[in-house]
C-alpha cells in the first residue's frame, strides 16, 4: 500500500480556481508553463511555485477549487509534482479534473486545524490515513472510491479508457 | 519672396517676419495632445522636477489605445492618468465612456484642430489635423514631457512639397486609394522631414473626412505634417465646435516648393498596400482572389461614418464569407451613435460583423482582433508593418473601406467595383 511523505502547505477556505491558476494564463497550453503560475494569486503565496518541493501536499479549508472548469488548476499542481490536495471539501469540477488526471485528492474534515504549513505528513491515499509526523496526530480522510478510484489507479481517464478499449 | 504654409505658420508663431527651410525656431504650441501614453509622459514630466504643467488648458488627453482596458497593466496605466489629470487640473480629458473615441478623430470632432494652430501630439498620426489647416506633428514621450514642462518646442523649418490633385474619383475609388497611390509612388521616405500641401480642385471637392484620410497618412511617407488649405467647408465644420480663436493661414502663391507632384483622380483605380511596408502599393486587381482570415474597418484613417456607410452599402442584406472575421470599430462614439441611428450598425451585424467599442482596437496589436501566425488581414488602417497587429508571422494589406468590405463579403481580396 503506497504511503506518501511530504511537507504541508496550508491554505484557507474558498481557494478558487483564479487563485490556484489565474484566468489571464488560460491561453497557455503547455502544462510545464502552467506550473510556473500555480497559486500565484493567493496573497502571501506568490512564491509557492518556486518554493514547493516534489512530494509536498497542498492542504486547504472548505470549497477548494471552486469556480472555473479549467483543468489548468489541476495540471499546474500536478506538474509541480505536488503529491496531492487534502482539503476540507473540494468543489466538484476540481474533483473530477483531479480524478481524470490521477492527481490525489482527499476530503478531510478539520484538516486545517490539524496541520500547519511546514508540518511533515504521511499519507496513505487508499485508506485515507493521515499522520502528522510533526505533531504525531493521526486522523482519517475520505478516500476516493468506486469508479473514481479505478480511474485514478489507471493514472487518469485517458489511460482508463485506453485500458477499457484494450489498447 | 513668398512663404509656404509651414514657413508662414512657424514664422508667425516664432514672432519672425520670415523663416526659410533649415532654420531652427522655438514656438509655444497651441495644443499638446496625448493618449494612453500620458501616463509614462507624466512620469518623465515628474522627473524633470517642475510641479505644474505649463498650461492645463492647452493639454488634451484622450484614452483610446486600449479601451476599455483589456489587461490590468492597461487599467493601471489609465488610473495613473486619471490621477495626474486631477492633480494638474487638466481641462480636456476624455475617459473611457461614450464621449470618447480615437484621439485624432475626437480631437477634430471636439474642435481642437484649428486653422493656423501649431499642434503637437505624442502620436505619429497627429499630422491628421492638417485637414483643418493646422500645422500638426507627432513627437515622442520625452519631448511631450518637455512641452508640458516648458511650453516650448523647437522645430527645424521643413522644406515643403506640393501635391496638386485634379478631377474626380471614379466609382469604387476613394481618398484612401489616392493617398496609398501617392505613398507607393514616392516611397515611405518620399516626404521625409517635409511639409506636404495638398492642393487643387479635387481637394476642394473632398469632404472633411476625406481630407483627414489624406493628412493622416502623410507620416507614412515620412512627412512632418500634411495640410489642406481651409475653405468654407472647414469653417462650416468648425463654426459651432471650435475651441478657441484661430486665424486661417495660407501658403503664398509665390512660395517655393522643393517638389511638386500632380495627380488626376480619373486615372486612379482601387489599390492595396501589400505586406510589410505602406509603400508596397499595387492595384487591387493584382492581388485579387487572395484568401483573407480577417477584415478590419476602423482607425483614425478610415473609421468615420462615411467609411461605415460604404461598408453597409456593400453588405446590406448579405452575409460575409464563411471563415472570415469582420471587425468594425467606429473611430468615435459620435460616429457610433450616428451609425446606430442610420441603421448602419444593424446592417453590419446582420452581415456578420463584430462591432467593437470605439478606440484603436487591433490596429497596433493591443486587443480586439490579434492575428494568428500565417493569417491574412485586410485593413483600413494606416500601417501594415510586420507584427503590427500583434503577430510577426501574419500579413496585413491596407485598403479603402470599400475594398475591405468587398473582401469580407467574398472572403478573398476583391475589387470593390465588382460589388458596388
Amino acid at each position, binding site marked *: 500500500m503506497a504511503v506518501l511523505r511530504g511537507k504541508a502547505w496550508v491554505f484557507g477556505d474558498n481557494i478558487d480556481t483564479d487563485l490556484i491558476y489565474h484566468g489571464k494564463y488560460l491561453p497557455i497550453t503547455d502544462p510545464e508553463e502552467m506550473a510556473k503560475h500555480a497559486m500565484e494569486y493567493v496573497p502571501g503565496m506568490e512564491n509557492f511555485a518556486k518554493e514547493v518541493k516534489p512530494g509536498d501536499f497542498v492542504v486547504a479549508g472548505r470549497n477548494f477549487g471552486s469556480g472555473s472548469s479549467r483543468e489548468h488548476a489541476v495540471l499546474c499542481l500536478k506538474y509541480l509534482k505536488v503529491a496531492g490536495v487534502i482539503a476540507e471539501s473540494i468543489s466538484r469540477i476540481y474533483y473530477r479534473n483531479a480524478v481524470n488526471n490521477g492527481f490525489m485528492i482527499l476530503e478531510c474534515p478539520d484538516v486545517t486545524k490539524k496541520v500547519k504549513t511546514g508540518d511533515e505528513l504521511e499519507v496513505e491515499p487508499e485508506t485515507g490515513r493521515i499522520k502528522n509526523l510533526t505533531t504525531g496526530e493521526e486522523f482519517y480522510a475520505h478516500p476516493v472510491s468506486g469508479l473514481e478510484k479505478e480511474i485514478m489507479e489507471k493514472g487518469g481517464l485517458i489511460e482508463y479508457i485506453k485500458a477499457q478499449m484494450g489498447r | 519672396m513668398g512663404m509656404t504654409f509651414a514657413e508662414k505658420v512657424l514664422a508667425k508663431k516664432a514672432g519672425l517676419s520670415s523663416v526659410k527651410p533649415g532654420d531652427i525656431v522655438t514656438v509655444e504650441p497651441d495644443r499638446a495632445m496625448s493618449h494612453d*501614453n500620458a501616463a509614462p509622459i507624466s512620469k518623465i514630466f515628474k522627473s*524633470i522636477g*517642475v510641479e505644474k504643467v505649463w498650461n492645463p488648458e492647452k493639454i488634451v488627453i484622450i484614452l483610446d489605445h486600449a479601451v476599455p482596458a483589456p*489587461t490590468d497593466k492597461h487599467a493601471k496605466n489609465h488610473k495613473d492618468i486619471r490621477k495626474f489629470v486631477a492633480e494638474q487640473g487638466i481641462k480636456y480629458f476624455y475617459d473611457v465612456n461614450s464621449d470618447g473615441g480615437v484621439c485624432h478623430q475626437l480631437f477634430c470632432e471636439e474642435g481642437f484642430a484649428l486653422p493656423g494652430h501649431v499642434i503637437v501630439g505624442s502620436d505619429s498620426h497627429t499630422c491628421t489635423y492638417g485637414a483643418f489647416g493646422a500645422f500638426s506633428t507627432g513627437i515622442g*514621450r*520625452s519631448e511631450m514631457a518637455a512641452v508640458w514642462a516648458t511650453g516650448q518646442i523647437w522645430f527645424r523649418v521643413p522644406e515643403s512639397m506640393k501635391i496638386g490633385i485634379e478631377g474626380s474619383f471614379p466609382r469604387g475609388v476613394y481618398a484612401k486609394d489616392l493617398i496609398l497611390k501617392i505613398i507607393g509612388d514616392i516611397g515611405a521616405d518620399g516626404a521625409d522631414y517635409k511639409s506636404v500641401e495638398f492642393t487643387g480642385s479635387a481637394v476642394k471637392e473632398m469632404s472633411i473626412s476625406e481630407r483627414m484620410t489624406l493628412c493622416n497618412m502623410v507620416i507614412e511617407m515620412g512627412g512632418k505634417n500634411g495640410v489642406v488649405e481651409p475653405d468654407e467647408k472647414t469653417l462650416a465644420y468648425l463654426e459651432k465646435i471650435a475651441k478657441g480663436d484661430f486665424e486661417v493661414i495660407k501658403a503664398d502663391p509665390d512660395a517655393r516648393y522643393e517638389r511638386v507632384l500632380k495627380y488626376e483622380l480619373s486615372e486612379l483605380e482601387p489599390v492595396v498596400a501589400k505586406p510589410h511596408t505602406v509603400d508596397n502599393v499595387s492595384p487591387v486587381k493584382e492581388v485579387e482572389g487572395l484568401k483573407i482570415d480577417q477584415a478590419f474597418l476602423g482607425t483614425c484613417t478610415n473609421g468615420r461614418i462615411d467609411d461605415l456607410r460604404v461598408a453597409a452599402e456593400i453588405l446590406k442584406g448579405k452575409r460575409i464569407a464563411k471563415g472570415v472575421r469582420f471587425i468594425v470599430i467606429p473611430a468615435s462614439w459620435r460616429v457610433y451613435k450616428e451609425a446606430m441611428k442610420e441603421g448602419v450598425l444593424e446592417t453590419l451585424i446582420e452581415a456578420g460583423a463584430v462591432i467593437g467599442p470605439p478606440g484603436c482596437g487591433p490596429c497596433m*496589436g*493591443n486587443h480586439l482582433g490579434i492575428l494568428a501566425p500565417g493569417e491574412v488581414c485586410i485593413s483600413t488602417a494606416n500601417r501594415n*508593418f510586420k507584427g503590427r497587429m*500583434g503577430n510577426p508571422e501574419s500579413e496585413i494589406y491596407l485598403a479603402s473601406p470599400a475594398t475591405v468590405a468587398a473582401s469580407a463579403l467574398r472572403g478573398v481580396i476583391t475589387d470593390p467595383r465588382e460589388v458596388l
Partner: protein
Amino acid sequence: MKVKGRVWKYGDDINTDVIFPGKYTYTVLDPEEMAKHALEDLDPSFAKEVKPGDIIVAGKNFGCGSSREQAATCLKAAGVGAVVAKSFARIYYRNAINQGLPIVQCPEVYDAVEKGDEIEIDFDKGEIRTSKGDVFSFSPLPEFVRGILEDGGLIPHIKKKLGKA
C-alpha cells in the same frame, strides 16, 4: 565623443513596429525589459547577442512609423552605441536625440560594411572608420542637438536649463 563596436546590419525602412512591437507599449515599461524585445520581429538574435557599444547600420528611413519613443529607448538600453543609417524618419530622429542615442546619417557606410565588422565613430571629427580602413565623413549634428546628446538626452538637458539638475 567616440563609439567603437560591432556592426549589426539591416535594410531600408526599418519601422518602429519591428524595432519595438506596439503590443508591448503599455505592458513593458522598464527600459531593461524593453531591451529584451528590441528588434524582436526583425531579428530575434539581436536582443540576445547584442553587446554594449554595438552599432546598427541601416538603409534609408530608419525608424519610420509610430512616434513611440521606446523604439529609441530599447536600443539605448540594449547598449547600442549608435545607429548609422542612410536616412532617418523624422520622429525617430528626434526621439533618438531626446533619449541620448547617438545617430549618424551617412549613406556611404552602408555598402562598405558587413555584419560583424568593427567600426569606430568619432563624433567630434565627424568621421566613421571601418576595419577595412575606409574613412567616411558625416556632417556633425547641429550644436544645440549635440548639447542635448551631451547632457544625456532631452530631459536631463531641460533639467539643466531649468536649474533642476
